[in-house]
């Protein structure tokens, strides 16, 4: 399997989403081939390369929670509006994010990925931004389908 970050189509979708939604950060996480852990595979607008080393446990953090629940999730004012510990949200700490909106990516009707947009200040994402993230997530599902289902 070629690295997802090397796929030009993935980087195009993420960069276009960043521009269209007017956000500071976009990232894509996918469940590992073996085991339940989730890893960030691609980021645009990142401050450092910590995301590459972060592995989120199933059910933990934004990515883990979205994959285990299969539902979108929004944070407006991190760390002020969270349930649980600050350290349960490593990508927020690593990228100094304050607000995020993230949706699941489905493969064969099973949530196996996450597309996230974020800002480094308090922000409520508009309905239009929600739609843009969902549209980009569908595009990524199409692009990545052959990669994921081949595993």
């Amino acid at each position, binding site marked *: 399997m070629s690295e997802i970050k090397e796929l030009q189509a993935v980087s195009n979708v993420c960069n276009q989403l960043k521009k269209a939604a007017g956000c500071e950060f976009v990232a894509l996480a996918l469940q590992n081939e073996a085991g339940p852990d989730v890893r960030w595979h691609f980021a645009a607008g990142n401050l450092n390369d910590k995301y590459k080393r*972060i592995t989120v446990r199933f059910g933990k953090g934004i990515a883990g929670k979205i994959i285990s629940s299969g539902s979108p999730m929004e944070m407006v004012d991190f760390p002020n509006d969270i349930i649980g510990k600050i*350290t349960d949200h490593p990508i927020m700490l690593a990228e100094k994010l304050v607000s995020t909106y993230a949706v699941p990516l489905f493969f064969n009707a099973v949530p196996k990925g996450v597309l996230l947009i974020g800002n480094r200040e308090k922000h409520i994402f508009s309905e239009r931004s929600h739609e843009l993230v969902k549209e980009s997530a569908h595009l990524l599902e199409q692009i990545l389908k052959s990669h994921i289902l081949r595993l």
Partner: protein
Amino acid sequence: MMEQPTNNQQISSYIIHSQEEEIKRISQELHEGVGQNLYSILTGLQFVQSSTKQQHLKNYLHEMTELLEKNIQEIRLLSVELHPPTLTTLGLLPAIKSYIKLYTSTFGILVDLNSTGEERQLPERHRIAVFRVCQEALTNIAKYADTSEVKIDFYWGEYELNMCICDFGQGFKAEETDNTLGISAMKERMHLTGGTCDISSTIGEGTTIEISLPY
């Protein structure tokens, strides 16, 4: 003459010790009780799954065994996070190495650990104190330091252990954090073991935590 501990120090020591004992008990209970029971259920389900010929039941059991495996892994990690068993069996350095591995994969922050001299077998109470100081320091770094690299140096001397944690991060003004509970707890833990814990920080250069613990 050795200084006698005050009543307050004795109370602090008692509270910290009881808390650690309770954490250790919960950790063992999770690992050896709940974890083992779930594992027995998993093997039972796998047996039923391989015995049944009905495909829809096979698929359903497969989903259940996957969910159970996730839960077993979660219980195991939770137990290790609470009280790493290596701290009791193998010693301080192996426990810290194992924690660092989990820390880097959680927060993406690289930790360079060096040890000079021969590791001594410290009493368990002292091992726990140093481990908890490292844990608290690394958690604070992940929360506030805005750094990608941390350096931890252990020096096993003839009479004492010295340890230094440098984060090369954004630093803070010491006077603003003098009374924070995390920092006070680190100092108190080391004080109760007969050691010291000094924290210094420079804006833009990072924070250094130095501990010394006489044998």
